[in-house]
Every structure is written in C-alpha cells, then in structure tokens.
C-alpha cells in the first residue's frame, strides 16, 4: 500500500533500544569526489573517493518513571569527567528507522558523538541536541524498498 512517511513514523534507536522523546533526526551521507580533469578538457570529470556518514538529532531531556534519562548514554560519550577525553571505544550504535507497521526501513551505523548541547530556557522544554560522525561502514541500509 502506498504511504507517505511522516515524523510519526520516525524512530531513533541507541543499541537497538528506542529512544524516547526524539524530536527530530537527520542522517547525511557524503561522497568525496576526486577530480580527474586533465589539461585540455572542457568539462570536469571525477572519480569516486570515500563515503562518510554524519547527522544530528534533537531529543527532549526526559526522565522516565524509573528515573532514567533518555539522553544519558548519548551525552555521556562526550560530556564526561576526567582528563582522558574521548577514546576509540566511545562509539554508539545508532539506528534510524522509518516504520510502516512491521515494515522497517533502517539505517544503522556506528558513530562518535561529535557535539552535544543541553539547554534550558524560560517557558520552553529542555532539549538535548547532538551531532554524530559515523565511523566505518553502515551495517544496515534497508531504505530502498
């Protein structure tokens, strides 16, 4: 059956667990192109380089009935105590899903959280905004059919 996907169909998961109160997310794929134009050519030509993935997401800063905060495992990858900084093990497994009942269209990747911001404003709901940079190949890309 035909379907137009909307924000209601969007799901964001961390380590295969659906995150609560996700306001928005965006995933971007980029291809680096290597120019192969030579002297005398009138039109540029390119060879494919490497691809990469990045994106961002906004979540409401939310504590559930068990006192667990939905953004903890995302923000903790970047906002942490100690002087060690971020290590190579500080990756997250993110899944971005466009669901149609049981038919899931997924992009799943491993990423580093490259920016995280958490704010509060009078008369507004506190939100956490994160950006991520994918590392390695995406493990699921079932968005084509």
């Amino acid at each position, binding site marked *: 059956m035909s379907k137009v996907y909307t924000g209601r169909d969007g799901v964001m998961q961390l380590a295969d667990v659906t995150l609560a109160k996700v306001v928005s997310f965006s995933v971007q794929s980029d291809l680096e192109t*290597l*120019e*192969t134009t*030579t*002297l*005398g050519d009138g039109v540029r030509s390119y*060879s494919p*380089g490497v691809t990469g993935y990045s994106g961002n997401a906004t979540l409401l800063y939310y504590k559930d009935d068990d006192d667990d905060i939905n953004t903890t495992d995302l923000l903790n990858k970047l906002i942490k105590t100690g002087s060690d900084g971020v290590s190579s093990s500080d990756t997250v497994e993110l899944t971005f899903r466009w669901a149609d009942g049981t038919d899931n269209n997924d992009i799943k990747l491993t990423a580093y959280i490259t920016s995280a911001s958490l704010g509060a404003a009078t008369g507004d709901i506190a939100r956490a905004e994160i950006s991520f940079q994918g590392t390695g190949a995406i493990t699921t890309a079932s968005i084509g059919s």
Partner: protein
Amino acid sequence: MAFPVLTPSARAFDSGDYPVKVYKAQSGSETRILYGDKRTNMKLQLTYANISDANAELFLDHYDEMKGSFTTFDLNSSAKGGWEGNADAIGAQDHGNNYRYEAPPQVTQVRPGISTVTVSLIGVL
C-alpha cells in the same frame, strides 16, 4: 620504454636561460658574457591527479628505466596536452636539449587504487 602517454592535470614550465656569466664590479657595473647559443635548464613539472595506481606505476617504471636522473628522453605530445600554443615553446628539443628527471616522481596515494603523481623534469644539453 617511452614516457607514459597521459595528459597531466596541471603543468608548470620554467623556460630556463642561456648560459650567461655575470661579473659585477664594486662600482655596480655589470658585465655579462654569453657562453653558449642554446637556452637550457628549462624545468617542467607535471601533475597527474587521481590516476590509477597502474598508471602511476608507469612513471616509476620509466624513472627506473631511465636510471633515475641519468638518461635523457623525448617527451611525447600527451605531456603537452591542453597547451594551445606552439608545442616547441614548452619543449626542450627545439633548443638542442632533452629532458631528464630532475627529481624522483612523487607518488601520493589518495585512496585504494588511486594516486597523484608529480614529475619534475629538467632540460639539459
């Protein structure tokens, strides 16, 4: 083995000079003596961006074949591709010169199977 038949993506040419010796007096006056009638020392730098490793290897093989900077060789027309003036103007043969390698080819690998090669040549009599 001939110089690889590939058109570069960038080319820089220095037209060299005639063999001139300059003597300068303390007064500042200058005396120049021309020791030859052939311009020499023209320099040609060719960049082949993002070519296949197989093509990059051709330059390494040619450099080896030429015994590095020892042997001179003719440059084919592909190396002058894109130049719409007289090919002699950026060549060396018209002045009795031939090119040899001034430095080893520089190969920079940019991704698997793709490399950028920079070749520096100098015209010698």
